[in-house]
């Protein structure tokens, strides 16, 4: 490569000589010295653009700073990038882009003056032949077509994110790009355009024709729309399935935490409820004790009193038959309360005798009688008390048992939930529910769209038959009808070929990706195979038949992307070099060693150019790569920071 006046590079010449075992070209430089602009220089030379330009570089003019500052006012410096490569049959080819620029007086901006792009090849007599314009572009297409350059010259980040961002539809498109199926696509589109043209022409000769043609066009548009809709739905369904598979792996053995949390909340409520209930029972028990306290404490005296009253009843003291107070007052005033005559001694003696037989006063007897039912009731209460308190204690025990069981369950759930990253699991489980719903909705929509598509296709067939008839009715349109028919036949063959080819290429790429991946992977017993399904979704299957793409480490993921890209190279037949900017920056130190070995293996088959930062080129990878590198270069910025030099180490 030769680079002059391009961004950091004032004037450099690099000879990528091959080593005895490998073709591994290593560049090492600090951030900002121009590594990525080396990648841009290649793109600029071949395609005329700079897709990896940093914001800082974008602010700077393309013309090297030193050149800008040192050129005189009337000077028109030229930016040049030349790539010396090998083309078909290993013939030498040079791609050379040069652009001249006028420099503003303050030296801060430039204006394009003239541009030139040539490809130089050798004729049979080994003379240089200069190809320009379309011819030169055609030679670039044979080296690395612009549409697939991302598989040859790329940033390491592309490897890291490859399967996160690329869907089956995108991979299908990439297969089409890389395998030249685009040629068939283009043929088919052009034939369709001409078929329409012939039909329109025939329509001018046949009045019904326009109507049928227009119906056919709109129905064809509908077929395309439905086809696109189906492709989109298919992509969404496949993407949902793939993500669901990944989530399934991540959630394997993990219960539904959301329902566990609901269970735990339910148990918490039960604990609160039962605790309240047991408190209420305690109060009830206290009230009962308070209510029965007096009668229980006075049980014996009360029983005795009742016994005495009973005895009094048995003795006939109760109820009283004589009034003691009346007899005493009659003795004090000895006049008969019945006849009013004065009492004689005999009568008085008689009253005294009666008084001696009366043990209770009327007042006491009344008191005893009135207290009797109360005493009975108290004693009855005491009789029921043991039964009531036993029932209450039994109820409290039941509640307490439930409380113990709920608390044990709560502890169990707490421990279970603490053992998972609940937030992450909850998020994944919610995502799973949402994906399942989306998938179901899309499957229903897919079913409807498929039915609609079948109907539309039938209508197209019917209209096509009508159109063919309408065309043939007119002699002058016969020729056009013949051409239209011929084109339609050709379109069908091209379409069939395209489908067969895509399927074959898918199979070839799957085989090749498997071959590369298992040649290079350092874990020999973890993975079973790489699959590319009919919808072009890539999956990495473990020995246990579990899809692992979402859960493998960065290094394995990058290796799979690299294996896939190498497979695309092999199947496409383009064997151009690979350039990777910061190839292992995102890989952990311990995996860099493995990845370094892989890059060496690949470099035995094809040229690899790697651009490392100093930090990235750590001891782990250095000890692997240094002995095998064909060339090592240091990219260093000059002290005045106006240019960058590349030196062989």
């Amino acid at each position, binding site marked *: 490569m030769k680079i002059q006046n391009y961004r950091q590079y004032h004037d450099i010449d690099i000879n990528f000589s091959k080593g005895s075992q490998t073709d591994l070209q290593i560049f090492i430089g600090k951030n900002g010295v121009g590594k990525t602009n080396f990648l841009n220089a290649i793109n600029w030379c071949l395609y005329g653009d700079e897709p990896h330009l940093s914001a800082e570089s974008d602010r700077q003019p393309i013309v090297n700073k030193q050149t800008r500052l040192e050129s005189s006012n009337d000077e028109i410096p030229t930016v040049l990038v030349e790539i010396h490569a090998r083309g*078909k049959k290993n013939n030498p080819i040079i791609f050379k882009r040069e652009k001249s620029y006028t420099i503003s007086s303050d030296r801060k901006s430039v204006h394009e003056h003239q541009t030139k792009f040539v490809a130089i090849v050798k004729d049979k007599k080994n003379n240089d032949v200069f190809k320009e314009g*379309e011819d030169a*572009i*055609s030679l670039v*297409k*044979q080296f690395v077509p612009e549409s697939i350059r991302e598989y040859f010259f790329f940033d390491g980040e592309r490897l890291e994110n490859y399967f996160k961002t690329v869907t089956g539809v995108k991979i299908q498109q990439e297969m089409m790009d890389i*395998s*030249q*199926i685009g*040629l*068939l696509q*283009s*043929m088919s589109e*052009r*034939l369709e355009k*001409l078929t329409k043209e012939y039909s329109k022409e025939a329509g001018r000769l046949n009045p019904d024709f326009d109507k049928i043609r227009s119906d056919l066009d709109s129905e064809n548009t509908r077929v395309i729309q439905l086809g696109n809709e189906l492709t989109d739905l298919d992509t969404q369904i496949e993407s949902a399935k793939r993500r669901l598979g990944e989530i399934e792996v991540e959630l394997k053995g993990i219960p539904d935490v959301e329902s566990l949390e609901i269970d735990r909340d339910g148990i918490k409520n039960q604990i609160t409820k039962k605790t309240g209930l047991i408190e209420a029972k305690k109060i009830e028990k206290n009230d009962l004790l308070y209510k029965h306290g007096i009668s229980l404490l006075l049980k014996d005296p009360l029983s005795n009193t009742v016994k005495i009253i009973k005895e009094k009843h048995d003795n006939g003291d109760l109820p009283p038959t004589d009034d003691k107070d009346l007899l005493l007052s009659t003795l004090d005033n000895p006049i008969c309360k019945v006849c009013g005559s004065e009492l004689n001694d005999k009568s008085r003696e008689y009253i005294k005798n009666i008084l001696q037989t009366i043990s209770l006063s009327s007042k006491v007897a009344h008191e005893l009688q009135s207290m009797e039912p109360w005493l009975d009731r108290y004693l009855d209460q005491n009789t029921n008390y043991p039964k009531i308190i036993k029932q209450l204690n039994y109820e409290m025990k039941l509640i307490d048992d439930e409380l113990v069981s709920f608390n044990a369950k709560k502890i169990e759930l707490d421990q279970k939930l603490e053992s998972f990253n609940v937030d992450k699991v909850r998020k994944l489980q919610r995502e799973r529910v949402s994906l399942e719903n989306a998938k179901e909705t899309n499957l229903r929509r897919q079913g409807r769209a498929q039915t609609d598509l079948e109907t539309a296709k039938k209508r197209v067939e019917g209209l096509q038959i009508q159109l063919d008839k309408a065309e043939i009715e007119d002699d002058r349109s016969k020729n056009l009808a*013949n*051409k239209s*028919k*011929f*084109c339609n*036949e*050709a379109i069908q*063959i*091209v379409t*069939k*070929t395209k489908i*067969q*080819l895509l399927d*074959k290429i898918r199979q070839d790429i799957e085989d090749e990706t498997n071959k590369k991946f298992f040649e290079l992977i350092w874990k020999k017993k973890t993975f079973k195979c790489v699959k590319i399904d009919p919808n072009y979704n890539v999956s990495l299957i473990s020995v246990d038949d579990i899809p692992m793409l979402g859960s493998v480490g960065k290094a394995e993921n990058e290796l799979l992307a690299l294996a896939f890209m190498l497979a695309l190279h092999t*199947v*496409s*037949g383009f064997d151009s070099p690979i350039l990777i900017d910061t190839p292992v920056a995102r890989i952990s130190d311990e995996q860099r060693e493995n990845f370094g070995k892989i890059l060496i293996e690949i470099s035995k088959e094809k040229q690899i150019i790697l651009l490392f930062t100093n930090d990235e080129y750590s001891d782990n990878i250095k000890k692997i790569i240094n002995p095998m590198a064909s060339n090592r270069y240091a990219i260093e910025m000059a002290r005045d920071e106006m240019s960058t030099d590349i030196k062989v180490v």
Partner: protein
Amino acid sequence: MDGSSNQILKLLQKNSGKKKQMQDFLENLLDLEMECPGWWNEKYKALIEKYSIMEVR
């Protein structure tokens, strides 16, 4: 013509069956596409004219 273009051609010919005109027509179209043609409209029309008439005969 590289490997994959050869593969395309073989499949096109196989899918054309025994129709020699169609085989030649599609081979010509493929060549045209690989040359990245300008004026494709005229070139296509000329080929269609030539081969569709041959097909009728």
